Every structure is written in C-alpha cells, then in structure tokens.
C-alpha cells in the first residue's frame, strides 16, 4: 500500500505538511481519545502523484505562476481549465486503488469529504470555503470524484489570485483531503472555548441547531446560543432562536434543506446535560492544545457526541496582549488602594 492514505489513528498535528490542518487535528483528537467519526486522509503525497501525472500531459504549476492576479478574465479561464483537468483526467491507479481500499475498510456507509489545507494561510476564509466539504457522499466512485473536486478548489479564481498576490511559490501548493464516516446528526454546531465577544477565556460559547452543522457554519440558520462558565458550568446566556430550517441527507447523496415547524423550531436544540458534555470535551481539547479552540461538533441520532474539527482560535489570540491585568505590587496590600483610594493606586 502506498503513502497516499493515512488513518486518523496514525497521524497528529505534526503531520500537518502531509495531512493538512483538518486531517492533523482529527488525527490528534483521535489519538487523544476524543470521539471523532472514523476516517482517513488522502495525503499530499497522493495529490503530488496525481499532479505529476497531470504535469506530464500539460503544465499546471507553471501556468498558475504565470498568471497576472489582476487579470480576472485570464484567471477565470485558467481556473475553468485546471479544475476541469483535475476532475476529468485519469487518476494514477495506485492512488485510486489506495483510497478505494481505505474507503472499503471504513465500511459501506456514507462519508464526508473535506479539504484539509497544509498552510496556516489556508485556514483563512479567503482560501478554504464551504465548497471544499461534501456531505453524504454515498459511493466509492462519488468519493473519488469529491476528492478530485477538493483538489480542484486549489485552482479556484480566489485561491490562485490570492497565492499570486502573496507571491507564494506554487511548488509548495498541495492539498490533503479528509474522508470520514458521516454523522447522522440530530443537531450540530460550533463551540468556542473563549468568548468571541470579549475574549474571556473563562467562558465557553456554544451555537447549535437541528440537523447538520453545515447550516450553522454557513449561516443558513440562526442557531441557539449559550454562554457557559468554562469551569463552573453555569449557563449565563440562553438565546433560543427561531430555527426555520435544517439540513439533512438528500436522496442519492448530498444535503437538502427541510423547513421546520412547531417544537423543533422553537425549543432548545440541546439539553443542559448535553451542554455540559460539550463543555467537558471542549475543556479537554483546549487543555490538550494549551490554547483556546474553535470546535465543530455533532450529536448523532443516538445521542453520541462527536467532534468534527478543532482549530486554534485566532481572532482574540492575535489581540492577546502580554500586558498584565493588574501591575504586580511589591506589597500585595497595595492592591486594595484600587478600591479605597478612589480608583487610583
């Protein structure tokens, strides 16, 4: 078997160059004992093998490097050409065999196919997007097709022009793709292990809605929102929204939207007990990484909690000043002057 495929149980964050951020994170969580839907990563090595085959027929990287990022017409034309090639040209047999074998080993069920970028910048919204995730992929053939589409997204207009503007060497551009068992989610959402509004690290913010988490991530539905004390577990904010629709599996694969009515629309999608479970897992993951996390999660129809993604929170992390909350005092008692001295120390 080639190195085209790596199982979650065998990889970690350090393997990011070959399995990408998402693959590395799912591997890390799996190794750490967090419940993650089982799966494997189609590595950058698989991509490289495929790209070599493409290059052998006609250049790819050279064409991208020659692109003028301000010429939108040229970029669109090149994107169409390269994406078509990635999706249509023959895939080297060793790669196809490896990923189909891994898919078989995973079991016959539906899978999610998700791009897993290898660079920090790839975390940027301008680079990775929803189109890189395909849910409810039902057959091996479809799975291979979606892996190609993920690779193809490297040649979207936005991706290519971004790389050109940043002057990134095209030789480093590669993408890993995650293939994992689909969670039949009763409800799903995201969790931040610090406050997105104040940056407070002592709270956890959870957003969730019925159905697949894609509806929450893409903003298709206004999720319920809770703020909990990270340590105490007390729930200080409960914003229960009117959830007009949810995303579910479509016949023949993919997702569709279902209008919600009555109870499911207006009642909280998570019980207090489930919120506490989330908090506990969130704390464990944060502790493991040593910094606040931005996590995707889902409860399946049997009530089992699964983690779909965890990445470091970036917005507040950049603002975190090293300046202390209170200047240290030689005499600890001097601190009380903040109260008694009319606000001055």
């Amino acid at each position, binding site marked *: 078997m080639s190195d085209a495929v790596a199982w979650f149980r065998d990889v970690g964050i350090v393997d990011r160059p070959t399995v990408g951020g998402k693959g590395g994170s799912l591997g890390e969580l799996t190794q750490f004992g967090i419940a993650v839907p089982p799966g494997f990563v189609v590595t950058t090595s698989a991509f490289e093998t495929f790209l070599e085959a493409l290059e052998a027929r006609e250049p790819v990287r050279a064409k991208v490097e020659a692109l003028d990022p301000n010429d939108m017409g040229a970029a669109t034309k090149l994107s169409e050409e390269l994406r078509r090639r990635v999706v249509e040209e023959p895939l080297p047999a060793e790669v196809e065999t490896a990923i189909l074998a891994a898919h078989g080993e995973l079991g016959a069920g539906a899978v999610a196919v998700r791009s897993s970028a290898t660079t920090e910048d790839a975390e940027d919204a301008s680079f990775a997007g929803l189109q890189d995730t395909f849910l409810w992929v039902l057959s091996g053939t479809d799975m291979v097709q979606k892996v190609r589409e993920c690779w193809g997204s490297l040649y979207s207009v936005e991706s290519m022009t971004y790389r050109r503007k940043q002057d990134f060497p095209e030789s480093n551009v590669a993408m890993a793709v995650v293939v994992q068992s689909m969670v039949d989610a009763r409800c799903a959402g995201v969790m931040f292990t610090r406050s997105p509004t104040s940056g407070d690290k002592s709270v956890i913010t959870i957003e969730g809605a019925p159905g697949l988490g894609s509806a929450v991530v893409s903003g298709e539905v206004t999720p319920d929102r809770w703020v909990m004390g990270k340590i*105490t577990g007390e729930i200080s904010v409960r914003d229960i929204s009117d959830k007009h629709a949810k995303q579910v599996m479509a016949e023949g694969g993919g997702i569709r939207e279902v209008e919600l009515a009555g109870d499911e629309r207006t009642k909280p999608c998570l019980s207090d007990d489930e919120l506490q479970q989330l908090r506990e897992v969130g704390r464990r993951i944060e502790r493991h990484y040593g910094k606040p996390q931005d996590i995707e999660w889902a409860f399946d129809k049997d009530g089992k909690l699964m983690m779909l993604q965890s990445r470091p929170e970036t917005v507040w992390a950049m603002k975190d000043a090293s300046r202390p909350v209170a200047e240290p005092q030689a005499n*600890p008692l001097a*601190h009380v002057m903040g109260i008694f001295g009319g606000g001055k120390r």
Partner: protein
Amino acid sequence: MSQDKSFPLPSSIKVVPGTEAAQAAYPYYTQFVPEDDEKFWFYNSMHFPEPMHHFDMITAEAAYVALGAFNTRVHVLPTAKGIDHRVINGRVYIGGIAVTDPDEIEERVGEFQNRAFYYYENWEDLYAQWKDKMKALIADAQALPTPSLPKYEPLETTHTGKGIAANHALLDIYQKQIEGYHRMWHHHFEFLLLGYGAYMTFFDFCKKAFPEISDQAISRMVAGMEAEIFRPDEEVKRLARRAVELGVDAHFIDDADIDKVLADLDELGEKGRSWLAELETSRNPWFNVSSGDGFYHYHRSWNDDLSLPFAAFPGYIEKIKAGVDLERPTAQLIEEREQLVADYRELLDTDEDKATYDQLIGLAHRVFPYVEGHKFYCEHWYTNLFFNKIREFGALLAEHGFFGPEGKEDDVFHLNQYELESAIIDLMLAWGIGGTPRGPAHWPALVAQRKAAIEEWGKHGCPPALGNVPDAIDDPAIVMLWGITRENLDAWLEDETENEKELKGFAACSGVVEGTARVVKSVAEMGRIQQGDILVCQVTNPTWSPIFQKIGAAVSDIGGSMSHMAIVAREYGLPAVVGTGKATTLIKDGQRIRVDGGRGTVTILDDEPVLEDA
C-alpha cells in the same frame, strides 16, 4: 434643553397627612432640613425595607454612629467618611459623605495605609481577639437581670450595705443594654469595610481578567470558610438524628403543637428528657438566629418561635431513616473551592497576573471568615438578646399600665430610645416616691397614634432616591455595602418602563425551575410551604436554611450574590435569584413562576392574580 431625569428633592417629600406627630417623634437630627436638598440620598431598602418603629430606629442610628467612626476616624478611608441618615414616613434615607479635596485624600491615604494594612497583616490574631470581645459582650448582656421592681427592697440590700435601691437597676440595665448595643455595632464595623474591600479587590481583578465571569463564580472561589452561618441548620439536623437515635422521632410530625410535643417528651421519661436537654444545648447560642436580618424588633429568633426548626424536623427525620447522608461535606466543599481557584488561575496568561491573583485570593481568603461569620454574632445573637431585653422593659411598663388596659409588651417599640428612658425614669420615680407614674396617662394615645402611622406609611411607596444624582458614586462603602452604582440609579430612573412580568436580580445559583410561588413574609408562614414550592421572601438569613430541603427554587427581594440565600442555595444546588427588589410585592402567593438562576430572572407565568390563601 436636555434635562437628565432626576429624583425628587427631599423638600418635596411630604409627611403623610395625619402622621405628622409620629414623624416629629423621630430624633431631631434625623429629620430632613432644607439644606438636605443639596445632597443625594437613597432609600436604604436593603436594611430597612419596612417603615421603622420608633425604637427600631436605634438600629440605623447605632450602625451609622459606628460605621462613620471607623470610616472617618479609625481606619481613615481616603475617599469616604461616614453615612448620614434621615427618616421620613418611617423610611430611612442615607447619603455618604465623600472626601473630594485631593490634599485631604492624600493625607488620608497615608493614615489609611498605616492603619488598615496593620489589620490586614494581623487579621487572624485580631479576628480571634474580636471573637473573644464579642463573646464577652454577649456574656455581659446575658448576665443582665430581668428588670423588676419588688414591693420592698430585699433585706440584703441593707444588710450588705449595698446602698443602692432596686429602681436604680432599671436605669442601669437599660443603659448597659443600650451601651452594649452601640458597642456591638463598633465591633461589627471593626473589620467589615476592610473585609469587603479585600474581597472587592479580588472581585475587580476577576472581572478584568474574565469579563464574563459571574458574580457567583467569584464568590464561590472565596466563600464557605466559616461554618457558623450553617451551624443553626446543622443543629436541627443533629437534633433530628438524636430523635431517631433515642427512638422519639414519632413525636415530630407536620403541623404539630410544639408545646404539646415538648410536654409529651418531658413525660416520656429519660429518653424524652435527654432529647429536651439536647434541644437546650442547641438553643444556646445556635437558635439565636433572627427570622429577618435582625434590624426590626419583630424579626424573632428560633428561640422565640420554635416553629421553624420544628417544621424542618419531619423532613430531616424521614431522610435520616431513609439512610440519606445529611452531613455538610465540608472537606469536599473546600476541595471544590480550591479546584475552582486553581482552574481560574490556569486561564491567566502571564506570570505577573498569576502572582497578583495569588496575592489577592490569599487576602480574600484571609478576610472572608469575618465577612461570613460576623453576622451570626452581631445581627443574630446579640441583636436577639437586645430586643428581648427591651421587650422585658415593655412587659414591665405594660404591667404598670403604661400602654393602657389592652397594652402589650411590644408596644414599647413605639417609643424612641430616649422616650423609653424617660418612661423608665417615670416608673423609677413613681416606685421610689410611692406615687403614681404619669406614663399610663401619657403613652397609650401616642402608642396608638404611632401604630396607626406605621400602618399608614406601609401603604405608601417611597422614591428609591432623593436629590440630584451625582456623576459618579465612588464611595467604596456605598458601593460595597449597598451595591449602589451609577448604573443602578439609571435603572431606577427607568423603572416605569419596566416589564412587570419579569423581574431581574442577581443570578445566585443556576438552573431553571417552574413552580408555585410561596410568598412568605415571616417564619409563622413557613408551614404553608409544600415540597417543590418556590420560596419568595424579602430577605435571606440562616433561619431559613432548613426550608431549603423542601423548596424547588428561591427568590428574594434583598441580597447580593454573597447573601445567605445565595450561599445556601448553592450548597443545596437550587436555582436562586436574589435582590430582585420587589418579588414579594409583584408575585402573588400561589402564582406559577419560572426562576432562571443562571440569568437572574424570575418570570410570572400566571396572568390571573390568585386569591390569597386564608
């Protein structure tokens, strides 16, 4: 012209017609004068939610005498002197005296650091010494004899050459008791502001480091050091256990006639009498807990009215027999608190902050036993002895006809403390000269007039504040003791637009519960509380602890996240919202309400007002 909203001026508050004489009977220095319009005042509804009987005004007076002395002259708080008070229509308004001159503040900062820092540094020793002083003071009060006047002086007065007649003892006892009460308030404030200040320093740090941390999480990191506020409830549990061990538990049933239970136990022989002896041990001192917060003479203690501990016995006995462990898991609570402290510490980014946090939590832990513990000694134990002593004078005066043929001992509380002294002297004089006191002709009409005034004042609301709102409230005493901030005042000014179906208070213990509201005004009503009811009461204190085993949630008018209700609710894991301001007035007994202890809201679910139970 954009005019900020403001509160009415003191001069615009009129005495309720017909109550002018009762108003005039409060001491002259507590009456509003025109100059008071220059100052800002707020209604101290936290300590004095009801119109004040004339005697009970001593509670405000003695407290502000002592508080002022400690702020102004003893610890020398840099920016705040004492708190001035006025009473109108039975309502106590208070206003802080701030220090604003920078030079004076500077001078006071130096003094404060020399004085307060000494206290912080020697806190444990000084607090141990404090407990001895308080116990000695209580022992002195307990040693005072019941005032009485014999027909003739006992023979030993002459045979020992004592040379002082029995009527002098009346004045002696009264003055000692008044003196002791003032002294108690000095002890009360010896540590209080410093204790709160250290806690607030830690509190402020936490709010900066963790902007969304709840008040209750901070208090949980600090509280639970002192066992004394839980002790009365522990004693009830202990007595329940003893009843089971002695096999006398069948006597403790719901709605029992307490006197009959006590008589039955006495007749039962050795086992019954053993239990009665245990009861006596618990009563002194632990049943000296007030059913209110000790600021009114009618906040009686468990010792005065055993119905509350007796209401709790059946539930506890049932649990003991079912093998439920009622022990307060002190070690576990301390372990949880230490874990909480460590967990929050871990979230701090810098070593500097961790160092500061360690210093501040250390100081908060050092001061907190006093903050939690002083109330039992001061507001409960001593205050109970004090009001009961005054009640003894009431009984003596009633016996001598001072309150008319229908007079009762409690009528004495319609006299202010100076009037009471004059009535006592009237009686002493009459006894001495062998004549007739003037009191019986003088007091009954005044008592009737004041009784009517109190009732009348109770029907009238009063503005939450008077005068022009200052730009900033930075008097640490006012912020710490009353939680009054500029934001609160703005909220009060907005009061009219408020949603009458939802009340807001401090989130004291999280969880959401819906149930039947039991609006309970006094201990006497405890029996009405059924399993799962939501307790709605004015104020919270250790007396009510045993009721927490029965209720589903708790709501109070008064109190912050450090109030006793909040502390006990957290121990019992019950949703609680405290300090709603007006739960007992807005919520009707029997209504269904929802308590969200995490958000600090109480929602009235029933639209129709429910007829008051008989």
